[in-house]
């Protein structure tokens, strides 16, 4: 029986718009999504993702003891029992699973050709490369962010985005594109397509599209796309007479097709191999629900675990 620590990279591939709600309203947006304080990049906080994974485990009929061992104890039952809010302090456990923030890998951005492209950035790829470092040696991709020689010029994975003096509309911006495809971007596109989307028949068209339609913009362009290429939805609440009772209020969503990635660490224990198998079955290739507005179909994401199903040596790009 092994007490080994397990490290995975969890990809989230949005099937429907995703609303992981932030703490406060932001400007005209009543219900903004979670963003990093320093960069403004969209994120799903580790605590929110861990809650979603815990819910998936409950819905997957895991034994209560296993849920508690992996995800930790429920919050103290304040108000339900004897009123002593601190009574659980000595017996509650933190859980074996550490869930990192799900950071943005690539954002679907409207374009004039091919409907949309996945756009990523130097920062996003650098972070993904850093997350790879946590993976076991045998499944660790060895990719580095592409070298940028011209400020403001987007790099493309495929030649259909390239040409002499080529500009492309990316959401609200017109961005110049490099003359030739970048082999590093192409390698990243292949890796992300395989890791995040997979090769099954249902997903193959999108994996093929990602291999061709991945663009890398620099850190001067990406903040604008992060701000302007999310979805804003106005909603109202009707009364029984079908007139507006409250609203409108505006909710922000990460669009469908968004790709995010989070590091998962399962601490070693006598049963860690068993728990690792349970997590793999729960998540790899499965759909879960993350964030709010569950009852109106939001927040459905496909999960894939890197480090879960590949043999040693396959991860090298």
């Amino acid at each position, binding site marked *: 029986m092994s007490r080994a620590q397990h490290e995975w990279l969890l990809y989230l591939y949005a099937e429907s718009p995703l609303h992981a709600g932030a703490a406060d309203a932001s400007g005209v947006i009543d219900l903004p999504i979670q963003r990093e304080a320093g960069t403004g990049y969209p994120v799903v*906080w580790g605590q929110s993702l861990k*809650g979603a994974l815990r*819910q998936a485990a409950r819905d997957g009929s895991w034994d209560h003891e296993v849920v508690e061992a992996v995800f930790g104890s429920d919050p103290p039952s*304040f108000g339900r029992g004897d009123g002593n*809010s601190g009574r659980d302090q*000595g017996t*509650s456990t933190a859980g074996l*699973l550490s869930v*990192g923030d799900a950071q943005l890998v690539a954002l679907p951005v409207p374009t004039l050709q091919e409907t949309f492209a996945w756009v990523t950035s130097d920062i996003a790829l650098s972070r993904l490369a850093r997350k790879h470092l*946590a993976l076991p040696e045998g499944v660790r991709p060895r990719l580095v962010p592409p070298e940028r020689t011209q400020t403001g010029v987007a790099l493309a994975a495929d030649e259909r985005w390239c040409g002499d003096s080529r500009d492309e509309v990316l959401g609200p911006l017109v961005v110049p594109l490099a003359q030739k495809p970048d082999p590093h971007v192409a390698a990243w596109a292949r890796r992300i397509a395989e890791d995040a989307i997979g090769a099954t028949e249902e997903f193959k068209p999108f994996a093929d599209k990602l291999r061709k339609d991945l663009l890398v913009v620099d850190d001067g362009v990406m903040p604008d796309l992060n701000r302007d290429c999310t979805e804003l939805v106005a909603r109202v609440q009707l009364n029984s007479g079908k007139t507006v009772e409250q609203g409108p209020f505006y909710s922000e969503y990460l669009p469908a097709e968004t790709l995010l990635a989070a590091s998962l660490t399962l601490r070693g224990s006598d049963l860690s191999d068993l728990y690792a198998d349970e997590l793999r079955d729960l998540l790899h290739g499965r759909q879960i629900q993350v964030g709010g507005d569950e009852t109106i179909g939001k927040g459905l994401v496909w999960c894939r675990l890197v480090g879960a199903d590949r043999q040693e040596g396959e991860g090298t790009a």
Partner: protein
Amino acid sequence: MTRSVWLAFTPRDSLFIRDGRAFDAGADNAARAVWPNPSTLAGAVGAALGGEPDEVRGPVLARRSRGGRWTPYFPVPADIVAVPDSGEVARLRPGKAPEGSATDLGDAVPCWLDAAGKAGTGQSWGGWLPGEELRRYLAGELVAPVARAGDVECLRETPVQSEPHVGLARTDEHTARPGFLYQAAHLRMADGWGFLAECVVSDGWDVEPRQSVPFGGRGRLAWVEVAGSVRWPQPPQRTGPHTFPDGRIALYVATPALWHDGWRPPLPDGAKLVAAAVPDAEPVATAKPGRGGARPTDRMLRWAVPAGSVYCLKFADAAAASAWALGDAGRPRVHGTAYGREPADRLRTAGFGVVLTGVWT
């Protein structure tokens, strides 16, 4: 025999480090994270090395270059103040208290600090100095006694932002659990920033840290790496008996200090405390990790002297000051070590009260 190894910790996500004050989901609805304190870092070091080194000294804020070189940053000394509307900064000097004035400190400090006639000073400048600039400060060369603010290489913005997170417990029926909505402010470090810790280990210890370890609460993790070529800012150059002219030593507090006498450090034999610049005390929590993943126990909240505090000490002569600060045949140096507690005290070995020595005029 022992040797020194520096480890660097780079948070993988946002940080959530508590100050030890109680927070119960369901009873309280807001919490905020604090700057990692020495015990936080010592715990991470223990996890990284698989055991406790003889001593840990940190945390030190640091930036990693693309080439992997770490530059330490230290809080601007509290005796450097901004001169309003002048674009200048001044270093406070001990001086006589104004006629007829009194303090509630009694005779603990005989002198007040003023800024050589620069009326209106008194606002701590704040910010962070890279190690080389702090070395110049210790040598009395950085702000002597006034300088243009632009001539001092100072990081004005802390590379950490507060990031409010909301949390909500849910029932098995996918509904919100009443009373379990809360807000917690995490800390988000800018890319490329982390914390350094000097680890004093036995010579025979083969230091191979784990790749990532828990750092603070909420299962947050940090990358770990060995940081080569890092060291504490050097003390003033030893030039015979004149390293500390007239026995004057500015004692700079590099990590939060927990001294037996509150804000006042224990004074070495023959030394007097002339003046002090000590900002507001900061809360520090310590706790023992629970067994088998259980939550921490034996929590303790204390109030610490913050990093950046400065004490002006006066020894009998330069030789006595130098022997105390830099060590001699019979005594270890004080510069770059945790000061004020017994060698085996865990608050010392965890890194509380690391001090650096410089000059004052």
